[in-house]
């Protein structure tokens, strides 16, 4: 292909030029192209970032409805994310430059409605991030357990979808119906985070809400009660 053969016109004559082959070596061209391809491959972003939608209440609302979360706290689960650190220190422990986070949670009202946390009434419990050896402490299992009515139905729908019984659109519609179904028992999950905990842990918790099909959840600020409970719990379990 890269050769051009010159043919003589007419028969052989004396003094006619010899048959010549011109070859073009394409190897450097290929080398250069490969380099360019490598450059473009390394510089492109093929995967676009994902986004997680959140809606927070406006600050005015927060001040007006301060008692709202307290009133509906009976069926609420409060998850508190904290960074692991030494007593009295603000500096979180790190492993390979990453902050070590911890999860705590309590059901219903803090300290069963009492004002001062003590060893008896403190209902804070410690949980583990996903992938824990102790299954009963795995935060995904805990959330799933509270939301099992909805979660089981959604799992059935997912199975139907995987078996090809329903289409993606049908799945979306039905899943939405299940999430809005008022007859099912649904928890309200309140996610709180101490200032030292890392942002990644918060996103991980928000992600768990998606995975476990939790429809009611909110991000809230730590109250004074939450902090004292956390300190009491940490002092007791040191």
């Amino acid at each position, binding site marked *: *292909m*890269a050769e051009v053969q010159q043919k003589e016109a007419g028969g052989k004559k004396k003094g006619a030029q010899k048959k010549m082959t011109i*070859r073009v*070596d*394409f*190897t450097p*061209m*290929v080398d250069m*192209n*490969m380099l*360019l*391809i490598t450059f*473009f*491959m390394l*510089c*492109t*972003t093929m*995967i*676009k*970032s*994902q*986004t*997680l*939608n*959140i*809606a*927070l*209440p*406006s*600050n005015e609302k*927060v001040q007006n409805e301060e008692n709202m979360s307290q009133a509906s706290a009976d069926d609420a689960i409060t998850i508190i*994310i904290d*960074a692991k650190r030494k007593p009295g220190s*603000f500096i*979180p422990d790190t492993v390979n*430059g*990453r*902050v070590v986070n911890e999860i705590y949670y309590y059901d219903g009202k803090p300290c069963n409605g009492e004002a001062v946390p003590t060893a008896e009434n403190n209902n804070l419990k410690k949980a583990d991030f996903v992938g824990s050896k102790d299954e009963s402490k795995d935060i995904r299992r805990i959330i799933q357990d509270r939301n099992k009515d909805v979660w089981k139905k959604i799992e059935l729908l997912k199975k139907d979808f995987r078996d090809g019984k329903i289409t993606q659109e049908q799945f979306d519609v039905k899943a939405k119906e299940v999430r809005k179904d008022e007859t099912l028992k649904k928890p309200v999950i309140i996610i709180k*985070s*101490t*200032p*030292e*905990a*890392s*942002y*990644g*842990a*918060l*996103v*991980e918790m*928000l*992600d768990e809400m*998606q*995975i476990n099909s939790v429809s009611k959840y909110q991000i809230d600020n730590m109250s004074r009660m939450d902090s004292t409970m956390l300190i009491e719990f940490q002092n007791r379990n040191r």
Partner: protein
Amino acid sequence: MGRVKIAKKSTFIDMTAMSDVTVLLLTFFMLTSTFLAKEPTQVITPASVSEEKVQETNYVQILVSPDAKRDAQGRVTEGKVWLTMNNDTSNKWSNEKMKMALLDKVAEIYNESHKNKLSFTPQQKMAFSKLGSFGVPLAQMGEFLNLASEPEGTSKMDKWLQGQDTDPNHVTGIPVEWNQDDTRPDEFQMWMKAMRQTDNENLAGAIKDGTGVALKADQNTAFDIVHMVMDNLQTIKMNKFTLLTSLKAGGE
């Protein structure tokens, strides 16, 4: 000395086909590629299973710096962010025009509450409209934009934005403070208000329904820094927004 003669064979391999293939591949990559945007700080976003993709147009990205000033008690007092704006160029608003309108608007908001009035020359506005990520305190904006007309100005601007400038007076990042007073916005809130108040309805609409504002922060950034930015947005009633995440490997 009878030796067996081995016929000389040419080792020439025809590379034409190979070359054809590589050129095709090259064309594909050139056409599909969008270059990694240069950002003032490198962050690794946390992973999530969310499958919603980020908007390509009509959105503002808020890049949160992992560093912040803290007081003696360890409380965050001042953080900084950089903004990137991507405009829907299909309508009458080009990216350049939009950026110029934005700069005018933010100067207007700034001048309401400051004695040192800001005004920008057409050259400075032009320089602003060419920027990708931006974020310097408004008081230094004029000086920053003047760099564009100097030789090697763009690399100087990049250095300034990345905080590697040799001049200690040059500050990078839009300052964010704890502020719950809507009537006295800090600089970050001024910028976000200006984004909403330009006459571009598409961007304003996207900001309102929450798809137009994307928060990008490193997974190791302390929560209170991100919280301060979120709180700032809540104060100016931009309480719907999205968090940028990367795809979690393995999914569920």
